[in-house]
């Protein structure tokens, strides 16, 4: 019997898992995917928003502003890349200037430090911004983060501190007897005193397994372009247009690995698993983003990937963090769309302080260690340290991914950790092998073979991503 069972190993579930491991509790996390943070948490803008935009008084506003400053410590403890580069919300027409003013006062109401800057200062700090730009709202606390390793390292730390993680298990039913939940998956049945529903786009389905809900999931897809890393930078800040009813609009931003992102679109979809892309949407993104940063138009020969993510938008249009009406010990944490990533540490605190603490005794876990063992980041090491490392372990000298210069040693290191990758995409998200110009054209066969060797299985069993996504179908001369 678990004290707390979390359904969903995205950013919300992983943050909660780690924070709950600070206490003497028996905690488990279940996810239907074969990796943590594999759906919404891995396909977003990777922005630590300042909090200038959410409607004052909303949970989104409150938790965004509380969450933002918490990331410096989290990223330090968990060896996650973060850069506080600031965001610029740009007015391209004179008529938009009053809206910027409005945003400025909204920011102040939310408790966010912002500053209006004129077009001259804007051009100085962001040389590639459109000459049409009339001014901008600068929020210096905004930043960018590595969203993949954030979730992975949160869960690694949680597991290192005693949390049990069950991947590849889909919840099919939940029942309650004598105040204990029986959570049945396609593989096992688990018992838990408290259940937290952090199931992202499937939170409605999970919630309905125990009680009626008065909200609906209306998943919204966002498509993106990814550009290779190049210098001089396309942009120095996160560049937003003025927000609209559909969200913060199409942004242009650097990533912590020096790439650039452009997107997202915003389209209501029926199937939350639909992460397809289409040419009309992409060309609309291109047009809007290039209105902000015209030079981007010339960089499309360095565009390396398109992708789409799905936001778990609900009809409430705010975070839903509450116990179900029927069971106080069933907690829904739903509708965690943007700014969900930045809010996640505050969401976790909110759940623990306002809900969990009233359900169970929280006794400090004295052996909790907030730090994970640091990873070797070859790209940021000097020659001497790198040489010393290769002398100790020659695998750090063998480069597998020549685009991103990822070594065999780094791949083996991530395979040795407590939340290791099982798939080629899992390796890619952790160490960036296959993230570059050739998109794994050269290194994916090597990565496939490394995984097969590590797990002692045939390469035929190695998947790109989800179940059924095996890369190879036959050995030669084996088709009947």
């Amino acid at each position, binding site marked *: 019997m678990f004290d707390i069972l979390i359904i969903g190993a995205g950013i919300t579930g992983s943050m909660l898992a780690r924070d709950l491991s600070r206490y003497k509790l028996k905690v488990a996390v279940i996810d239907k995917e074969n990796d943590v943070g594999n759906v919404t948490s891995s396909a977003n803008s990777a922005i630590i928003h300042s909090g200038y935009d959410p409607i004052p008084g909303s949970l989104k506003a409150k938790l965004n502003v509380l969450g933002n400053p918490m990331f410096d410590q989290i990223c330090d403890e968990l060896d996650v890349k973060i850069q506080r580069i600031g965001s610029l919300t740009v007015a391209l027409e004179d008529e938009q200037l009053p809206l910027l003013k409005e945003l400025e006062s909204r920011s102040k109401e939310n408790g966010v430090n912002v500053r209006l800057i004129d077009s001259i200062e804007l051009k100085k700090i962001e040389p590639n911004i459109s000459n049409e730009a009339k001014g901008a709202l600068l929020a210096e606390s905004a930043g960018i983060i590595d969203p993949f390793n954030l979730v992975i390292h949160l869960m690694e730390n949680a597991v290192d501190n005693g949390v049990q993680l069950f991947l590849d298990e889909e919840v099919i039913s939940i029942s309650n007897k004598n105040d204990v939940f029986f959570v049945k998956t396609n593989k096992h049945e688990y018992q838990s005193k408290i259940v937290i529903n952090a199931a992202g786009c499937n939170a409605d389905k999970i919630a309905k397994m125990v009680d009626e809900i008065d909200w609906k999931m209306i998943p919204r897809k966002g498509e993106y372009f990814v550009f290779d890393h190049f210098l001089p930078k396309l942009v120095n800040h996160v560049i937003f247009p003025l927000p609209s009813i559909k969200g913060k609009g199409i942004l242009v931003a650097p990533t912590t690995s020096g790439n650039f992102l452009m997107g997202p679109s915003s389209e209501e979809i029926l199937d939350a698993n639909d992460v397809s*892309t289409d040419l009309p949407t992409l060309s609309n993104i291109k047009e809007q983003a290039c209105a902000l940063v015209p030079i981007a138009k010339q960089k499309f020969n360095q565009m390396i*990937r*398109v992708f789409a993510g799905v936001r778990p938008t609900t009809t409430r249009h705010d975070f839903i963090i509450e116990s179900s009406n029927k069971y106080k010990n069933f907690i829904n944490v739903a509708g965690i769309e943007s700014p969900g990533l930045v809010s996640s540490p505050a969401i976790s605190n909110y759940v623990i302080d306002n809900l969990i603490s009233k359900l169970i005794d929280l006794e400090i876990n004295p052996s909790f260690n907030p730090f994970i063992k640091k990873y070797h980041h070859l790209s940021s090491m000097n020659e001497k340290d790198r040489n010393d490392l290769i002398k100790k372990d020659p695998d750090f000298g063998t480069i597998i991914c020549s*685009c991103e*210069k990822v070594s065999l040693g780094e791949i083996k290191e991530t395979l040795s950790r407590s939340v290791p990758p099982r798939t080629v995409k899992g390796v890619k998200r952790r160490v960036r092998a296959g993230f570059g110009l050739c*998109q*794994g054209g050269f290194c994916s066969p090597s990565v496939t073979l490394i995984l097969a060797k590590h797990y002692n299985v045939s390469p035929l069993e190695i998947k790109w991503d989800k179940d059924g996504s095996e890369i190879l179908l036959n050995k*030669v*001369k084996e088709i009947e």
Partner: protein
Amino acid sequence: MTDVDLLIIGGGSAGMAAAIEAFNHGVKNILIVEKDKQLGGILNQCIHNGFGLTEFKEELTGPEYLSRFENQVETLGIKYLLNTLVLDVSKEKVVTLSNKSGITLLKARAIIFAVGCYERNAGAIQLPGDRPSGIITAGTAQKYLNIHGYLAGKKIVILGSGDIGLIMARRMTLEGAKVLCVSEIMPYSNGLNRNIAQCLNDYNIPLYLSHTVSKVIGKSRVEKVILSKVDENRNIIPNTEMEFDCDTLILSVGLVPYNSLLENMGCLMSSTKGPCVNENMMTNIPGVFACGNCLHVHDVVDFVTDEGRNAGIGASKFLLETFNETNSLKISPKNGISYVIPQYLDKNCNEKVTFKFRVRQPIKNAYVVIKSGDKEILKIFKPVLIPSEMVMIKVDAEKLNDLTEDILITLEGKDE
């Protein structure tokens, strides 16, 4: 820091030819750096034949072709490092290498880049639809099959009629896979005619010209590929969909010179995505040369070898002779010609200069004209020119020595 006279990055067909030629021209302190576990580059996985027709007047497989050069490298005692990647090259030609023994810094007096190219992939072409497993570039599928012994697909649609796509259509068919069709967005094939005949026609694999993938469907693995017809501007024409149930989409949608190192050095780049070079294959950075598919993508390996030799001779001139740097003339493509190599001409040239170029689209009965200002240097009639076949025209040095104005290479109609 160790010094080396000539460092060659890449031990494929371009790099080996460059090394051998430089050695034969008197450069003895040469080092080839190869990232793979053997010399030969991509030829190792090209087990089909058709290589060497120009070079050896016989049809060899890729491994046979490369072994002839590998043997020469061994015989001459040219040094090479395998499993070694070049991490960085500075403008001062200090090269940072990584391999099992550590990080090594080398100072080179001259460098030849012969790093080859990479395949354009799904992201770069904004492939519409889902992104499941089973979308793979032709070269990667070829590596899985010919090097590792695994098939990446059983029921296959191929997008792009480039040579690797055509070769893989036949190769996968021979291994028992079913290739449903090859789709080509252009109204003509981008592969060599012999490959269309030998790889598609001989196996009854249909080729749909002016067709592209309008949607990929599949949650975990490719389930369906939808092809649509495109108009002359390559826009999809609605209601022309053809649906194919398949498990794999092989992409053969172009090769791109792989040049991040050169770009980082501040090398002047051309529209081919390779560096701009002069007739000695030297870039705008003195002593830095490029050849093979990292300069421009070739269709025949024999021509890569030839270009490698050119770079080897260029580097030996740079190292052993006084290499007078003169104000080069610029060579530009015009009117239906998509690019020309070299892009610059050193006026002191004393040998024949080979102009290599491709046309933008197929053209019949045209004159290729090379001019400097108003002065016509050369005019050659060509009955057929197609984009998939690189054209080479050799021009005598004496025709180029006294030129003072930039050079244009252009196409003119028969009547002009």
